[in-house]
C-alpha cells in the first residue's frame, strides 16, 4: 500500500504538484489522468522516490519511498514516459539487465526477457539494437522491462501513448495480471480508454487532484 500524505513538489519558480493526499492499494489498477502538463509525471517521480517531495511524504508499506539519494526502492519498477532504455543494448538485453540487477542469473534473465518480449509480440525484435526500433516498439520494450521484474510496485507513465489498440489492450492485460498477483499498479494516462480499464481513477489538474471515481 502506498500512502501519499500532503505532498507538494515545488521548484524554485513554481509549484508543480500540491496538496496530494492519496492511498493506493495493491491488487488494483489505479489510473491518474489529466491533461498534458497537469503534473502526472512529476507525481509519479515523487511517488517512486526519484525526487524528494517538498513537503509531505510518500510511504510504501510504512517505509518512505524517498531514500535520500534518488535511487528508488528495489520494490519499485517504472515504465517511463520516455522509456529510458539503454541505447547500445539490444531489446532483450535491456530487459535482461533489469532482471540481472535484481540478482537473477544471466541465463534465466535472458530467457525471462525473451518470454516477456514474446508476450508483447516483439519477440522477433529481441536481438535488435533498441536504436533501430520504432517508437511503439520501444515503448513495448520499456513495458517488458518493467513487467519482467515482477516488482511489488509498478508505476507506469503513459505506457500506451504510442501503441495501437491491440497492443494497448495487451499491455493493459499484463498490468492487470500484475495487479491480480498483488502488485500496486499506478497508470498515468490521458487516454480515457485506458482509464476505463482501471479500478480506481484520480484526475489531476494543474498539479492538484480534482476527483476520485471508480470507473466501470
Amino acid at each position, binding site marked *: 500500500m502506498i500512502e501519499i500524505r500532503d505532498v507538494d513538489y515545488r521548484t524554485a519558480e513554481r509549484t508543480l504538484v500540491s496538496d496530494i493526499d492519496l492511498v493506493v492499494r495493491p491488487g488494483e489498477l489505479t489510473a491518474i489522468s489529466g491533461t498534458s502538463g497537469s503534473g502526472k509525471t512529476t507525481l509519479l517521480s515523487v511517488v517512486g522516490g526519484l525526487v524528494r517531495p517538498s513537503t509531505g511524504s510518500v510511504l510504501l508499506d510504512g517505509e518512505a519511498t524517498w531514500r535520500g539519494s534518488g535511487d528508488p526502492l528495489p520494490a519499485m*519498477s517504472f515504465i517511463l514516459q520516455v522509456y529510458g532504455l539503454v541505447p547500445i543494448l539490444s531489446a532483450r538485453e535491456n530487459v535482461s539487465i533489469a532482471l540481472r540487477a535484481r540478482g537473477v542469473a544471466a541465463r534465466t534473465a535472458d530467457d525471462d526477457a525473451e518470454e516477456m518480449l514474446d508476450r508483447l509480440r516483439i519477440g522477433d525484435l529481441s536481438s535488435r539494437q533498441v536504436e533501430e526500433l520504432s517508437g511503439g516498439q520501444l515503448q513495448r520494450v520499456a513495458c517488458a522491462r518493467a513487467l519482467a521484474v515482477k516488482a511489488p510496485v509498478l508505476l507506469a507513465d503513459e505506457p500506451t501513448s504510442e501503441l495501437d489498440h491491440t497492443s494497448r489492450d495487451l499491455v493493459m492485460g499484463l498490468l492487470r495480471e500484475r495487479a491480480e498477483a498483488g502488485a500496486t499498479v499506478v497508470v498515468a494516462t490521458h487516454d480515457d480508454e485506458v482509464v476505463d480499464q482501471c479500478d480506481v481513477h484520480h484526475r489531476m489538474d494543474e498539479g492538484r487532484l480534482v476527483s476520485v471515481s471508480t470507473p466501470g
Partner: protein
Amino acid sequence: MPAARLARVHATELMVLGGTTAILSSAGVLAWALHRSGGDLLVTFPLALLGLVGVTLASLDLAWARHHDLLVARLRGVHGVTALRVVAAPAWAAVLLGTIVGPAAASGFLGAAPARWPTPDRWGVGEGVAAAAVGLICAGVATGTTLTLFRLPIAATFVSGRTARQPLTPAAVARVAGIGLVVLAAITLYRATQPSAASSAVVLAGAGVGGLTVGQLAVWGLRGLSRTSAGRRTTAGLLGVRRATSTEHAPRLRLAVAAAIVGTAAWSGAAAADAWGHESEALRVGAAISLYLPETSALQTWQLTQELDPEGRWLMAAAVKDDRDESELRVAYLDVERYERVAGPVLDATTGSLAGVVEDLRDAPGVEVFTGARLTASAHHRPARGGGERARTPSLRLSVEYLDGSGVVQKVELRLRPDEPDQPDALSGEIALPQCEVGCVLLGLTATGRSRASGRLTLDTLVVDDTDVSGDGWVSPDGPADEPPSRTLALDRRSVPAAARTDQPVLTAGDPSWTDGPARVVGIGGGDRPITRLGSRAALPLVLGAGLVGDLPVALAGSRGSVSGVRSVVLARGDTPPDLLTALVDRGADEPVRIDPGSSRALGPSAAADLHLRTLVAVGSGLLALAALLGGARGRRGAARRDAASLRVIGIVAGVRRRARLVEALLLGTTVLAATSVGGWLTMAAVTHRVRLVPTGPARLPEPDAVDATSAVVAAALAAVVWMAVLLVAGRERRVAALLTARVTARRTPNREPR
C-alpha cells in the same frame, strides 16, 4: 542561433575543430620550411592522412552537436547559399581561426626552438600558401561533412525516442572504406618487399596506411568480440562490453591507433637517424675536440702530446689514413693508452668504443724513442768450430737508419774495430748522431764487412749516449711472420728491430678483404705489417664504418716517416685548457674542430630536414589523437549522465555502473595497447624500416635499424592510458542529482545534455 550562444553551447566541438586545423596548418608551415631545407614532403604524408581523418571526425562532432539547428534550418526550408552559410559558417569560423593560430604558433615555436632546426631564416610565400592550403582543405572537409548530415533524411536525424547518436557514414560506405584500406595496406606491404623500396613513395607514406589499417582491424576485432558470449556476462560486463564496442567509439579508436602507430614509426625513424648522426659525428671527430696537424709527422705529433701533456690528462695523438674507401686501406692509429681519459667520454657510448680493449691493442712492443748525441755499438765474433783462418782480422761497418726529430730518415755509418789487438773478436765503434736531441726512432741497420768463413757476428749493444736501444733484437724486414728475433748480424742484409715486425693488434670495421696473402695493415710509413684481429665493430673512431684501428706507439715502432695520406691529429677533451689548444695551434695545428652537439652535420642538410619532418609527424599525430580523444569527452559526459539516470531507475546501483565504465575503459585501453604495440611493430618491421633515413656510403656508419619495439609499446601505453583517463574522467559518475534523474527520465531530449 546567435553566434555568441552558438560559440558557448558548442565550445568544445568548435575548439576541437579549430585546434585540429591549427595543428595541421602549423605542421604545414613547418613542413614547407623543412622542405625548402632539403626535406622530403612525402615524409609528412602519414600525418596528412591522419589529419584528414581527424578533421572529418571533428567536423562530424560539430555537425552532430548542431543537428537540432540543422534540422530547424531544414524545416524552415533554407537552401542555396543561405543554407550553406547557416550550415557551415560555424565550422568555417573555427577553421579560419585554426588557420591563423597554427602558423602563429609555428613561428613562435621556431623563434624559441633550438637553432639546430634546419629551417630557413626567413619565411617565404610557400609557407603562407601551405597554411592557406591546409585551411582550405579543412574548410572543404568540414563543409562536406556538415552538408552530408544536413542532407540526411529528416527521419534519420530526428526520430522520436532515439537516444543515441547515429553513425553518420552509412554502413556500406564504412565497409568499403575499410576494405579499401586493407587493399592499400596489402599494396604497401608488397611494395616494401621490392628491392627499390627505399626510394618508393608508397613505402615512405606507408605508416599512415598501416596505422589506419590496424585501427580498422582493431575496430572489427572489438566488434567481433562483442558478438560472442554476451549471455554469461555480469551486468557490468554486459554494459561495459556493449559500450566499448558501440559505433560511437569506432572512429576514435581507429584514429587513436593510427596516430600512435604513425607517431611511433616517425619517432623511431627520427630517433634512429638522430642517434646515427650523433654517433657518426662522435666517431668522426674522435673526441670532444680534434686538431689536425697537416705538416707534422705522426711521430712528432705523438711526441708533441707527450711534451705538452706528459700526464695524459687532455691530449691524445692519432694518425689516420682515410683517403680510400676500402676497409683494408683505411687505418686509424690512436694513442690508446690515453683513450679512457681523452676520448672515452665521447666514444664510450658509441659502437666504436675501445673501452675494454685498450690493453689488448697495446699488447705489442711500442715505439722506443731515444735522444742523444753519440751512438756506440759493440759486437763480437765467434769463429766457427774448427775453423782456421785466424789471420784475418774481422772488420764491420754498421749502417744505422733512424727517424730523426723532424721526421726525416737519417743514416749514419760506423766502423767497428777490435778494441785491443789481442782480442780481435771483440769489436766496437762510435759515431756522432745528428738530429737526435729531440727524439729519434731506430728503423733498421745493415752490416757490411768481413767475417771469417762460417763465423758469426753478434751485435752486443747499440747505445745512444747511455741508453741501449737494441731492444728485443732484429729480424729481416720481409722474413716470415714467425721469424725469431736475434742479435746475429747477417752481412749485407738490412735488419729491422723486431718490434717493427711483430703482429699489430687491431679492431676492424666493415669488411676488410685481403685478396693476396695474409691479413696486414698499412703502416704509417707505408709498409705493411701483420696483424692480430681482436674483433670487429660496426664502426670505429676516425675511420667509421670501414677500416682498422690500432695503437699508435705500436704502429710507430720501426715505422718510417708518415707517407702521404696519413694525417696527424690530436684529440682533446672538451675541458682542455685553452692555452694548451693555443700551444698546439702555435706548433702547427689547424684550428680546433669541436664536436657538433646535434646530429645535422653528420646527416647532411636533407637527411637532417627529414629527421625534423619525422619529429613533426610524431608530435603532430600525438596532438591530433589527443584532440580527437578530448573531443569525445563532452558528448560522453552527457551520455554518461543519461545512462546513469536510466540505469538507476531500473535498480542498477552506482557500484555496478562504475564497474561497467571500468570494463569499457579497460577493454578499449587494452585494444589500443594491443593493436598499437603489435601493429606499430609490424608496420615498422614490414614497411617503414625500408625507408632510407640517413645518407649511405662505404665509409659511413651502417644504416640504423629503425624497428623499435620499445617505442611501439611506449606509444601504445601512452595512447591507451590517455584514452582510458578521458573515458573514466569524462564518464565518471558525478553524483547524479535526483532532480536530474527525474528530468532525464521525463524529458525527451536525447541529444542535448541537460543542464
